[in-house]
């Protein structure tokens, strides 16, 4: 099994990547919508500073996991919408399985604390 990199500095970043991909599974969204939805749905457990959002989005886009398209909204306003690609869907599914497996094993052992 190829485990996700759970080094402390990477933990949040990895989490954010999966969360972004998960939100985009449903429909395309722009950066702010993504951050807001993750924050609201996680009841502020995952708070997004946009300083961290853009590097993640642009990295995912470079990897071909998401696709950014510009849309004109009003005379002066342009917005970049992100949608998940087929490659991104496969990647996210695989990552989710790995996370689930990892945490199952983690709670199997850590669960002893409660017993």
């Amino acid at each position: 099994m190829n485990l996700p990199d759970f080094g402390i500095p990477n933990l949040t970043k990895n989490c954010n990547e999966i969360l972004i991909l998960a939100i985009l599974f449903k429909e395309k969204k722009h950066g702010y919508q993504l951050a807001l939805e993750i924050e609201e749905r996680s009841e502020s457990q995952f708070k997004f500073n946009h300083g961290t959002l853009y590097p993640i989005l642009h990295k995912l886009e470079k990897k071909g996991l998401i696709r950014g398209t510009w849309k004109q909204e009003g005379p002066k306003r342009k917005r970049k919408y992100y949608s998940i690609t087929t490659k991104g869907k496969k990647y996210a599914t695989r990552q989710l399985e790995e996370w689930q497996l990892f945490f199952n094993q983690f709670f199997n052992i850590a669960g002893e604390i409660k017993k």
Partner: protein
Amino acid sequence: MTQFTPILKRINDSLDLPQPIKSRIILEMASDLEDAYIFYLQKGLNKNEAAQKAEEKFILTDEALSELTQIHQPLFRKFMDKLFDQAQTRWEKVILFLVLLSITTIGLKIIFTTQFFFRASNFVWLILCLFFGIIIISLAKAYQFYIKKDHNIKRLRIGLPIILILGGANLFVGIFGYTIELYSTTRTPMYSGLFDALVTVIENNNDAFFNSVESVMKCSSMAMVCTLVTISTAIIWFFLNNKIKKIEQAEAALLLET
């Protein structure tokens, strides 16, 4: 000019990226900033508080800045930008222009006042063909920028890499041709090297020496043309690249004002 112009300008200044990429990042942030501002207004905050809250959300840390740079910066472009940032003052541009003028004058003088084409190697024609291609593309770009005033960001850099490729090809042909010419000179019994020719001319006073000298001249003239074409190509490319950078910066400035 929006209320977020200062923060967007700060981000723009701290991103070490080529202008079209930087502009797109700024454009994306600008629309998200506006959204965040509206969101906080709807939550009941006053205008100042909402703007401040929105700005707080968009602080780019040094780590985020370097990550964005790493993601978007092509190594070649980074190198070229650094190289051409070194010649930005008016005086440097004037000096470069004078160098180009001198090269053109000297080149034309050599070509038209000596029997250059009668003595030139066949490789010179190939070099001149490549240079002709460079001139055509450069004129097309100059027409696009200065006469047609087509400053569409997507079309700005089209053709510019071809100038570089043709310049590189010219250098390759020059070096290759020079080697081949020298090799064939030394392989021909009649021109068996300058030293032998000198000995021969002293002993027999025949034409061998002059033939060898002519052969060396053939190589030298080709090397000279190749060098002139390479320097001219580099200077043409520099001028076009500078113009493109100016157009891109103007677009970024416009973006920050709207």
